[in-house]
């Protein structure tokens, strides 16, 4: 069962996080945290014409939260804000037993599917996605 959680691709994203670091001219900068385990993510987005042009992150936490963050920053660049919101919904759905998201740049995300067998870790996987949702809401001023 542990193999389903710690798939090679997750450990790879954990050890070599993509899009890591601050984004100097970010349009949004939002910090999310999980008060119980101490995971934290700060997400920087560059947004133009309703589209995410760049995404970077800082923070620290467990392999799941950090790998999920890394995968997310890969997956969302180039997507419209509405597409990104839909993707958040798909990832949440996957954690509740739905299918894996499909589409360009989304292959890695499927590796998160195994998390749903570990209920106490679902929060870790969703932390960056909740932070993304908040970023979009802040950007849109809602």
């Amino acid at each position: 069962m542990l193999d389903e959680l710690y798939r090679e691709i997750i450990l790879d994203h954990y050890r070599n996080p993509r899009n890591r670091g601050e984004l100097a001219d970010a349009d949004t900068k939002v910090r999310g945290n999980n008060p119980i385990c101490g995971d934290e993510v700060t997400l920087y987005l560059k947004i133009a014409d309703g589209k995410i042009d760049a995404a970077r992150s800082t923070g620290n936490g467990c392999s799941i939260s950090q790998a999920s963050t890394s995968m997310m920053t890969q997956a969302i660049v180039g997507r419209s804000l509405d597409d990104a919101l839909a993707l958040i919904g798909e990832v949440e759905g996957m954690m509740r037993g739905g299918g894996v998201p499909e589409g360009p740049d989304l292959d890695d995300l499927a590796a998160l599917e195994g998390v749903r067998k570990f209920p106490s870790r679902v929060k870790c996987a969703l932390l960056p996605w909740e932070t993304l949702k908040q970023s979009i809401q802040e950007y849109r001023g809602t």
Partner: protein
Amino acid sequence: MLNEQQIRADFPILSRTVHGKPLVYLDSAATSQKPRQVIEAIVDYYRVHNANVHRGIHALGDEATELFEQARATVAKFINARDPREVVFVRNTTEAINLVARAYGGRVLGPGDEVWTSAVEHHSNLVPWQRIAAERGATTRYFPMDDEQSLPESALEMLTNRAKIVALVHVSNAFGTIHPVERAIAAAHAVGAVVLLDAAQSVPHMPVDVQALDCDFLAFSGHKMCGPMGIGVLWGRLELLEAMDPFLGGGSMIQEVFYDHATWAEPPHKFEAGTPNVADAVGLAAAVRYLESLGMANIRAHERDLVAYGLRALGELPGVRVYGPADPDRHGGVLSFTVEGIHPHDLGTILDQEGIAIRSGQHCCHPAMRALGISGTARASVYLYSLRQELDQLVAGIARAREVFDLA
């Protein structure tokens, strides 16, 4: 010496399995497991005696009241209180500290006054003081910790007579440190401050004598000492309790109520508004009797042995850093550590698959973790039912985690 086999047979949950493996419960600092003697006391209360208390006139009410007040006396004797009236039943340590913060702190604190705690406090011994200090225009200040996460005695010199309250953890839940509270109490009294001890991790694990300690308030939780959830204790010097404001208002804590005002009952009832948790007070008394039957000094000796063993075993593992004092005489039953390359949360999940229950994270001590520059630790905590063999399993589980993370 504790009879390990006999003790383990008293705890029904210890014979269950987790993910197909026998449970190795190393999370007693979060909450302890319960012996059948405690469970049976609660069942007996509900099956035979249950009634509301202090409202008398019928036999069940008399029985329930007597059991409740006997429970108070049992707890009072356990911590060597002068008088059972010094024992207030609350929900948990957290409520006890909030009670003192509001009903004592709210009365004595004013602008310029200081409340001192330490850098390694549980949130429950930080947030109530931050809030009441802010409300009263007082300041919260913090003793630093040394590099074994212990309160350095030199820090006590920072106290001046602006200090009105010193609220300290006795044994740290995050690092296992047994703090030198006797010196802190003397230093606080020397500047005229009263001392509250957060004894959530000491009363369950070692002999604690409020008169010998000479503290002014002591807070602890039943659920961490083999007792039920939902019951905790505030002990306070009678004269302080008498001078304090009430805490919650309602039934039982009053003397007389009029439409425009009310007068208060005497301690401890003044602080016990509404129907108390009689069943769990009775359960707590059963827990105290259980602990006394083993002997608190024996329990501490057992845990000291385990901690010495665990400190040695963990210290030999590659990439492992253990927090808290290296000297097991100053180290309670908490082994708090990090493993390089594995986040504590991941370690917890991997150990859980082996049936081993530890806790990972910040242990309700955000500021201390931030000060150490870490995002948390893994914590294995032992109790009277824990075995050396379980620490061996912990060590084997850490090796397994290193494999999963390709570190081995």
